[in-house]
């Protein structure tokens, strides 16, 4: 697990654990989950914004550069629920925002 705690963004920030697919971990030179510092409220948008600031090599790989829309073959899961179609500004479950549970970004099983 990579520790991003030195990137404090204020007293309201919390650490969120993100699990990335294999190819994106390689791209960011990560092993295991990554911790990112996120200011409240903790939403898909705020987590991904923080992730992309810390790991700019991931920009455009999870969300479209300009529209911010999730790439078609990626899905978001939190606490065993599919958050892919939820509003990017919806608050994620407390278990995720507190770092107990990871936010999962997974590649959809497609392509044969």
């Amino acid at each position: 697990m990579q520790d991003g705690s030195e990137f404090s963004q204020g007293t309201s920030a919390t650490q969120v654990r993100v699990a990335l697919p294999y190819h994106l971990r390689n791209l960011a030179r990560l092993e295991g989950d990554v911790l990112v510092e996120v200011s409240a409220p903790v939403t898909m948008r705020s987590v991904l914004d923080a992730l992309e600031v810390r790991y700019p090599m991931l920009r455009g790989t999870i969300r479209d550069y300009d529209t911010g829309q999730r790439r078609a073959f990626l899905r978001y899961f939190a606490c065993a629920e599919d958050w892919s179609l939820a509003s990017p500004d919806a608050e994620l479950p407390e278990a995720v925002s507190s770092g107990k549970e990871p936010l999962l970004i997974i590649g959809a099983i497609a392509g044969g």
Partner: protein
Amino acid sequence: MSSVRVLVGTRKGAFVLTSDGKRKDWNVSGPFFAGWEIYHMKGSPADPNRIYVSQTSGWFGQLIQRSDDGGKTWHQPGLPNEAIPPPGPPTAMPNRFAYDTAAKPLTTHQWYDGTQHPWEFKRVWHIEPSLSDPDTVYAGVEDAALFRSTDGGENWQELSGLRGHGTGSKWTPGAGGMGVHTIILDATNPKRIYIAISAAGAFRTDDGGETWKPINKGLRSQYIPDPDAEIGHCVHHVAMHRARPDVLFMQKHWDVMRTDDAGEHWREVSGNLPTDFGFAIDVHAHEPETLYVVPIKSDSEHFPLDGKLRVYRSRTGGNEWEPLGKGLPEKDCYVNVLRDAMAVDTLDDCGVYFGTTGGQVYASADSGDNWAPIVRDLPAVLSVEVQTMA
């Protein structure tokens, strides 16, 4: 001592093959970017250590990678390879290919069913570094458009005059998509660029990319009712000898074509080819009238005739062709050779290289007379480029 570096893009990563000038013993390094589709990689003629790569994925989109040390290490232009501290994101956006929406009309092209369809960026098919500036590089993309970077690939701007050409709304995807797959720079005239699109045709600019002209007169395509159609031709690839920038050779869907006036008029030079369907075409480095194609059986069966892999060479600028098969499979060979998967080196005895969808890369160190595989079991080869180092 001279040496050769062969850059191979495959369905599952990039490989760099190196040899000395004898081109007998090869070192294979890679895979780089393992698991990603590498549509194309090409070195800068102005700085051989500078190599650009198009790295794509149906899941994760488009990335541009760059090496400044001849392929030993790679990075996304302008971005660090490691996590960075705050504040804020960097200014480089090497993977952003945003269509220029300010120009008109740019909003739609023709879809398979005849309706209009929005332009949607999918991937970079071809990267063409400038002949004189390592930081200037062109990218041909799907859906068809041309982009340019002047800062080493950190940021890209569309040359929207191409897509804004009056015929843009009539461009239609080929079976493999609608991409700019060929970019040819004129060493004698920096304002002139040729490009080709499946399935719109070939275009030329004489003002550095501001305005473009279709150059498809003389092309005949059986699926186009109008024999003089301005666009709509499925051009597979175009090649040029640097010393004769007005002479182009084209492998079309069917037909091998030639122009002697920069694309103003084309004529067929398929001659005695056993089939004139194919994808790859290239020109000898020192003999402008010597060209190479790899005939493929048909548009329905993308493999060599009779299971025999053959390169065909013309020493007369077309029409008269000879099969070259020494060292190539004699039977049971059912691979394809894709449009960007053939290249030549510039050593005195010109080397010719091509890669197959079966994962072989073949090389000839004597202009095609004899062939041998450099590697046999790579993933399907999408592109082959060669750098010759003095």
